[in-house]
């Protein structure tokens, strides 16, 4: 499981953008995806995040972990995209002759197991309450300790634990439903 490594706080040397990019792209991508940015927009959104990171990197003082800082950027970008997609979908519904690009039939590639696995996970995550989902993704997918996640989300550690517990419980329930519905999609 890829872990979004954070550089140590209180750094003394300037951060190298390329190194940051290489280190954080996967984390940014997963953060955007888990937040609900459609797959078709993930590349654009990732670009946006790193353009912002580049613009602000010199101002990053190392008072927080790099992961925390980038997470905040990614969340803002994700919200932007989600709003934009929502507007576009409303518009598309108003003009029925335009097909919904996000709801096209699956391509042969999409039938592949990897894509299926991704879809299932995203579908499950989408059903979680956002606050719980954030904690779940950071802990269970990114492997970040709960204490650090609490700092990232500016919540109490106990709250983070509580959300994690609820998210796990919700996810189990949703997964059970999905198994009942799809059977083969989930073991």
């Amino acid at each position, binding site marked *: 499981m890829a872990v979004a490594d954070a550089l140590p706080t209180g750094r003394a040397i300037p951060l190298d953008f390329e190194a940051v990019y290489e280190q954080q792209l*996967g984390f940014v991508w997963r953060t955007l995806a888990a937040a609900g940015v459609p797959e078709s927009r993930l590349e654009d959104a990732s670009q946006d995040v790193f353009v912002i990171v580049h613009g602000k990197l010199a101002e990053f003082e190392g008072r927080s972990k790099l992961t925390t800082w980038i997470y905040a950027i990614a969340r803002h970008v994700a919200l932007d995209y989600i709003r934009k997609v929502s507007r576009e979908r409303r518009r598309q519904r108003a003009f029925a002759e335009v097909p919904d690009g996000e709801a096209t039939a699956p391509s042969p590639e999409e039938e592949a197991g990897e894509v299926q696995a991704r879809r299932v996970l995203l579908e499950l995550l989408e059903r979680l309450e956002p606050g719980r989902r954030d904690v779940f993704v950071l802990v269970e997918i990114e492997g970040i300790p709960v204490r650090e996640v609490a700092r990232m989300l500016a919540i109490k550690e106990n709250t983070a634990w509580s959300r994690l517990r609820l998210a796990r419980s919700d996810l189990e329930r949703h997964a059970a439903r999905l198994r009942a519905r799809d059977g083969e999609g989930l073991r």
Partner: protein
Amino acid sequence: MSELSHATRDVVTEGARALGPSPSARARIRAGVAARISAAAGGAELRPEPGGDGAATAVAGGSAAGSALKVWLMGLLAAGIVGGVAAGWFFGRGGRQDGAPASAGFEAANRGSKPAAGVGAGAGAGERTGGGAGERAGADPAPTVSGTRSPAGGASAPRRTSRGAGAGRHTSRGGSDLDREVAFLTGARRALQSGEPARALAALERHRRELRAPQMAREAALLRAEALCAAGRPREGRRALAEADARWPGAPGSAAARALCGAPE
């Protein structure tokens, strides 16, 4: 603390493994970021003044420098509005290309080149700011999230996201008609690239209404066709395209607009 069942954990593990960007997506993102950083570093001519609109500010001066910039912008518009918008749309719809010069921007970034204002720099009054997690946590301030999308090939600074596309509002303080025309079309192009065709259409409508003798009517017509299609009005877009074709047969950029609108060759 309840734990996930083995079955559900497997689902999460497998899904997470598949969740990262593919190698080709990595390459495209890298190329796109590099191009945009390079464009921002070299495209400072469109630097927005505080509280102002970048394009409008750039063209509103009327000074000698402004004249030189106007020539530059005209070139940009000639090559950018017709082709760039089409390419921007192409990119915006997920059809990005591999192989863009990825290294230049990254090298510039690592040399510490400063991006143009607006590249997440939070300089403009119209930019969104976020009291994000980092800030709330008393850590590094959550960065300002501002304009983020730039045209393919990095022809200009990244977009601003929260200002209207009616760039002419700022230029009406004294710019010439050509200045205003450039500003309107630049605003429309940026709005289109940032996925806001309604704003693009509004800017183009002002261009149509407020300019008696537009010198860039062809570019405006093609932009309008694309904006209509982007707004989910393909019939109107194709009609606008047909009108532009009739008026300027074989105009540069019309093929791209036709492809975007799904109009016949």
